[in-house]
């Protein structure tokens, strides 16, 4: 029984009924977690806007929060989405859009249930913001490709079963052509994952060395040479992932600051008061801007404000945490642990202020630098001329590096 079979589009009520029916058949209290999640997927109640047979029912995406809430209310296990951010946010929409039916059947279910974690092999040391400047090569060898190169800033690579991978298959083409997109098994011979240590002391990210790694052509997503189109689609999904739901007032960096300000009056000085209020105003303005963006998206008018929200978020995280250290004074000079290690997942507020200060420096770099965000706004929103560039039509192999 599907939405189309019953004649009309699925409504919130209709979906609610399905959830209740499912819960009646699968008692969350007594069903094995994985078994429960697989069944939920098979019932089309995983991501309801996905097609039937792939975890969804072709419903409107706005109905998803209601479904999730109903499962949560019943005490059902979730798929721990924060452990598979790249899988759910980037790999899945890409597989849905560009994958063959076989690929979709193979990958989407264990991705959604969290049985298989995904990572992303896009960034390279020589590329930076110029993401298309991929040097990792893939050369055909029978029904396989042989991949060589180095990727960087790969989160979850040490946990991942699969990676989405961009490679250069034709260096004689200009930069944005000649790229091809694959799915790569992270346990393939020649894949070497090394932790990349960051300024906090920990290693959230990895470098991944690819040394004669063989990837079956059956794991190609999209056509040979169309990797840039696939990549851009993937990245667009990353940016859309912002928004959704009311953001609490005083969440994030400002919340930490005002907590200290309220709870520790002995730290306050007169000269800092107006600055605290300035930050409060900026943070609240930023929050309402994100709220408004969410409303626009919900109304089917996704605006370009996302780049601005990201810019502001990065700037405020940095400025506010820096100010918090000044407020804390001597206490801020004590750190917790610089030793090389994998980070433990904790909420931001459990982290010490100076860890948050250091970590925030990455916010204006990761996921598109603040400079790239400003270019995007100036060119795509304001319509100002693009930067002069010399790399668009020259064969990639002939570009200076």
């Amino acid at each position, binding site marked *: 029984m599907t939405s189309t079979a019953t004649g009309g589009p699925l409504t919130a009520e209709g979906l609610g009924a399905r959830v209740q029916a499912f819960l009646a058949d699968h008692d969350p209290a007594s069903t094995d977690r994985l078994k429960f999640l697989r069944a939920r997927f098979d019932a089309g109640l995983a991501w309801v806007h996905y097609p039937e047979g792939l975890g969804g029912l072709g419903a409107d995406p706005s109905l998803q929060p209601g479904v999730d809430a109903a499962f949560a209310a019943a005490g059902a296990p979730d798929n721990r989405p924060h452990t598979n951010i790249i899988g759910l946010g980037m790999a899945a929409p890409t597989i849905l859009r560009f994958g063959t039916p076989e690929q979709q059947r193979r990958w989407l279910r264990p991705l959604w249930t969290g049985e298989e974690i995904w990572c992303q092999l896009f960034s390279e040391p020589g590329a930076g913001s110029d993401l298309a400047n991929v040097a990792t090569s893939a050369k055909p060898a029978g029904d396989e490709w042989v991949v060589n190169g180095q990727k960087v800033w790969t989160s979850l690579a040490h946990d991942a079963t699969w990676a989405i991978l961009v490679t250069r298959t034709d260096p004689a083409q200009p930069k944005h052509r000649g790229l091809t997109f694959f799915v790569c098994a992270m346990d393939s011979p020649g894949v070497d994952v090394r932790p990349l240590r960051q300024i906090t002391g920990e290693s959230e990210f990895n470098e991944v060395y690819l040394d004669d790694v063989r990837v079956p052509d059956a794991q190609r997503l999209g056509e040979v040479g169309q990797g840039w189109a696939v990549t851009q689609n993937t990245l667009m999904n990353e940016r859309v992932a912002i928004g959704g739901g009311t953001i*609490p007032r005083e969440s994030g960096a400002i919340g930490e600051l005002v907590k200290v300000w309220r709870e520790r*009056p002995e730290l306050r000085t*007169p000269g800092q008061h107006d600055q605290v209020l300035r930050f409060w105003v*900026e943070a609240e303005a930023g929050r*309402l801007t994100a709220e408004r963006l969410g409303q626009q998206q919900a109304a089917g008018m996704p605006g370009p404000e996302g780049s601005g929200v990201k810019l*502001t978020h990065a700037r405020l995280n940095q400025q506010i945490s820096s100010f918090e250290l000044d407020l804390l004074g001597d206490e801020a000079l004590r750190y917790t642990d610089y030793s090389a290690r994998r980070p433990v997942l904790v909420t931001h507020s459990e982290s010490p202020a100076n860890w948050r200060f250091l970590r925030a420096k990455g916010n204006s770099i990761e996921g598109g630098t603040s400079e790239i965000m400003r270019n995007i706004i100036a060119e795509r929103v304001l319509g100002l*001329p693009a930067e002069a560039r010399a790399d668009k039509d020259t064969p990639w192999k002939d570009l200076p590096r």
Partner: protein
Amino acid sequence: MTATPVTGDLLYSEIEDDLRASVRSLLEKQGAWDAVLARTETDETVDRELWARLAEIGCAALAVSEEQGGAGASWREAAVVAEELGRAVAPVPFLGSAGLAAALLVAVGEQEILPQLAEGGLVAALAVPFGTAPGAPTPAVELRGELLHGTVRGVADAVAADVLLVPVGNDLYAVGAEADGLTRTPIVSLDMTRQLVDLTLDSVRGRLVASDAEGAVTDALRIGAVLLASEQLGLAERCLETTVEYLAIRRQFGRILGSYQALKHRLADLWVLITQARAVARYAAECAATGSADLPVAAALAQAHCSVVAQQAAEECIQLHGGIGFTWEHPAHLYLKRAKSNAIALGTPERHRAALAELVDLPGVPA
């Protein structure tokens, strides 16, 4: 941690879009910037003709109910009009009459002036200095016997006012603009598109409109702050548009100016600020329209933020136009003077931040 109030609708409704289109079309015909500039050097600094046209489409009392003769809309729609008037730096008494005075008359349940104000036949103004923040003390006009005495300097929208609403202690009086003993002296104002007036009351007879009106005056000033924020938003948007248009055609060193990345990034930053100004201005209008308990926070937030954004937009507009932006014969100075004047009007950003300190429990150093 303060609780998160319901956000409400921050977008523009179809009705609001239509209203905007009507007002903009009217302003394009009757409120071009060169006419606005020329008018600042005449004795008639208010465009009464334009105001009459705006009143015809309901702008004189949007947030007044139909029973009271108003348009039966809300402060949301009024805020949209304020945006358009800000874009045009229009010399009309919208903020004073349709904003401050109307809000005050509604709040005290006044029945005589309001219907005339609503149909556009009468302009009213709140007789307080334009810089008065919500909750700040108002000038000491006093009642001696039955007559009013005192001075109120720098009142907005009193040039074209027929009636002045005068706070006297906790009372509110209405005084006819032509009353004996009342002197109205228009002053050379920083922003001549909203010329201020000094009032002197020397044995003036007024009509008691309400007692116990202090709270209503504060509420009216708060509504004014909400509308002013939208006016600032509109002005900021216009400054950005004008600047982008200019940079898209002006060449220096053989290149379109708008292709220089440093300028692009500054305009991108300004655009981001304007998206924020829009969000806080809309939130304030929504709170005003729905009577949200968060209105005091929303109004202070909107003023604290939009004042800064409008000034920055006007400043970038001048700077990025180069020399021409510094001349009298370019509109940039009208925006700058309006933006600076607005930043001080109804309380500076710093005053509004100080108000937020109380409202959201962020106190200063303990005494």
